[in-house]
């Protein structure tokens, strides 16, 4: 077991993890944040996506020890003081979800995209989101919500 320190949603945390223990279970079980979901355990579906140092990563295949010293953001850290992040807001407005199980991973992956590319084209969204799986079939609405959120985020930082 190793002690791993990192910043989670703006707060410093310390956990002990085995060498190969995935970040997903550390977040869900040790830190009690269950918004990050288990879907496939092999990085194929993206429902476990979190942001680490500004990059969207699959927490189910990421050893927790690799998070040492990083800044990690989960779905729980996206809204502040009960106010939804524009991405969350646009997912709600566009009804860009059904069962909602893939939704946290979709939003975090989209967040990773918008950090780098605030106004992605339809094609750029498709490429970035392609390996996040949704079984209910909300794809078109998710693309729309992400593009709308990009515009909202740009507005909110504009002078």
């Amino acid at each position, binding site marked *: 077991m190793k002690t791993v320190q990192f910043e989670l949603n703006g707060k410093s945390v310390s956990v002990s993890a*085995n060498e*190969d*223990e*995935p970040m997903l*279970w550390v977040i*869900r*079980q040790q830190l*009690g*944040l*269950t*918004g*990050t*979901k*288990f*879907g*496939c*355990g*092999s990085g*194929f*579906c993206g*429902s476990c996506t979190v942001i680490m140092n500004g990059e969207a990563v699959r927490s189910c295949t990421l050893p927790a020890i690799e998070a040492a010293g990083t800044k990690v953001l*989960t*779905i*729980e850290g*996206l*809204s502040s003081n009960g106010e*939804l992040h524009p*991405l*969350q807001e646009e*997912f*709600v*407005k566009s*009804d860009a*979800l*059904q*069962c*909602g*199980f*893939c*939704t*946290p991973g979709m*939003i975090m992956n989209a967040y990773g995209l918008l950090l780098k590319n605030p106004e992605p084209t339809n094609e750029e*969204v*498709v*490429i970035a*989101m*392609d*390996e*996040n*799986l*949704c*079984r*209910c*079939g*909300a*794809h*078109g*609405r*998710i*693309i729309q919500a992400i593009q709308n959120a990009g515009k909202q985020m740009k507005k909110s930082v504009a002078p």
Partner: protein
Amino acid sequence: MNNDKKINKRVLGNMRNPFGMDRRDFMKRIGTGLVVAFSVGNTPLKAGMLAQDDTPGVNAFLRIGEDGRVKVYVGKIEMGQGPITSLPMEVADELDVRLEDVDMIMADTDLCPWNEGTYGSLSTRVFGEVLRGAAAKARAILVKMAAEELSLGVTELETRDGIVRSKKDSSKKITYAQLTKGKEILETSVGDVALKKTSEFRIMGTSKLRVDSREKVTGEALYAGDIQIPNMLCARILRPPSLGSKLLNVDTTQAELMEGVEVVRDGDLVAVLHPSQHIAGKAIAKVTAEWEEEKVDINQDTLFDHILEVATESRTLASEGKLEQGKEAAVKNINSTFLDPYIAHSPIETHTATAMMEDGRMKVWASCQTPYPTRDGIAEELGMDQKDVQLLPIFVGGGFGGKIYNPQAIEVARLVKLTSKPIQLVYTREEEFIYDRLRPAAVVKIDAGLDEAGKISYWDFAVHQGGGREAVHFYDIPNSRTRTLSAPRGAMGHPFYTGAWRAPSVNTNTFARESQMDILAAAAGVDPVEFRLRHLEHDPRMANVVKTGAERFGWTPAKGPSGRGHGFAVGIDVGTYVVVFVEVEVDKNTGYVQVKRAVCCQDMGMVVNPQGAILQMEGCILMGLGYALREEIQFESRKMLSTNFDSYAITQFNMAPEIDVFIVDSKDEVPYGGGEPPIVVMGGAVANAVFDATGARVFRQPLTPERVKEAMG
């Protein structure tokens, strides 16, 4: 008020007691006020499901409390299909309360009466109507109570936003909350109060966004695996290498040596437990076992021969005219064989359950479409009283028919009983595939012929092992027969568990029928829309759906193959008439099919929440592209080779076409099913569009690049 006593307390009338308890206990459990309970009666899709030991007395009830809030207790679950949004709309409208004053209590088996399950588009179609009846009854009772309070006649009163008021003098009014304060009224609804007419709707028929989105975008929404209980252990279970394997011996020594790992053995159930999901996973890998596997010489390619061989029991579902006469009249015969593989439900949430014992009772949170049959199954397995098992409300991360069956809930309950500890069981993706009740693989043979006038003179349809739902055609054909052929009892029909995959049987039967219609149209040299309409003269409702869809798509008549990549299919699912037109692009070098555009038009009767219906239609198109283009279980003998999303591909973003969905206005009709319709036509629409683009007919789903390329020759 001296009239108080008249309508202060009532007892159950003509229905069975909902929980086998007396009225006082019942009211104590759910609170005082006005309660209206109702029965759905026998629903049409019960066949094959666990039924309650006798006729259900009460299926749901609603309560108007002293705070004016309306609580609706239903056994339905929310798995994305939207009843959490649409059922309150029905209640609020009939009862004349504000939508935000309605709370849903869904599938808490201690509080909500028995329900067979959430599947088959039953929630709105069957259940909603009765729920409306109960709300209408409650409103009638409140008006009567108000008449007494206000010394006015019932006809002098109107209701709005939870208030009864005089039509003439709006200062004479009383709220529902005031009326129900301190009362204990328990009434039944037996459809004895008229429902609102469509023209009187205030809420139904308007579009509402989902009410559960906020919880779902913040990660607050709880699914079965999100339940955290102090001292809870995670379980992993020893699984056989293939279905039907016998456990010869097992060695758990290495697992037992791991710190904190507990091994549980109960007959064939071998499990490891640990507080950490990760360690439990490592521990199960250290359990070694010897199995005797059942070998059958069959895989995804040879399976169709197996199906034709084993499916010998013939049942005729429908027959019209004389096939022989039709054959004599035919100048062209077309005999086609269509093949469908096994496909998996693949919800993103795997089968999951968390359970604990509390005060001698088993509490279970399960990702489950059938909380009551599951509760009863647990009680039976453990020899417990049904009253001592409770399933609690929880969001379900996709079901599609796959969560009708819940082995995980039984397994977790067994482990809790054996250890007396709280336990969580999250199926791995591999377990999800192995224990899924797959959509059955099937072979459909259709022999049909055209007469000199280019009309179908006979139609002989036989579905092998796929099931008979919507196998019977709806076209004008003078001589036809529809049969199902199934494996006799005792024979191994399918090497895997099979079950209800979103619109069971209908996808298979519609793909075959609509492909054959397209083949016949091409053989007759007639535009496929025109060809359908020529055979729909008796059915204006279906003809209207086809015409409306064609117009919306911008269809221009041409006989196939036109080279444009336009195709469509029509179908019926639980009373809803549906058509989808698609435009495809086929890569001539690779055979890869890209669906560029999909236009869906459906006639589904009255629609409670058009927005919710549209979400389902879009979802069906996208999910349907998966089975049409890429979903296929790979296997060898009874061993599953599709174990994760690398070996079983579903719809991805790059496949999403431009989608246009449209609901035909028929709001004065009863509601038909809304959860499934467009999915049933996706296979046929894509296959027909691929033919139109290339001239190549693909008879086997999915239309993988290899198959399309091979068909192109």
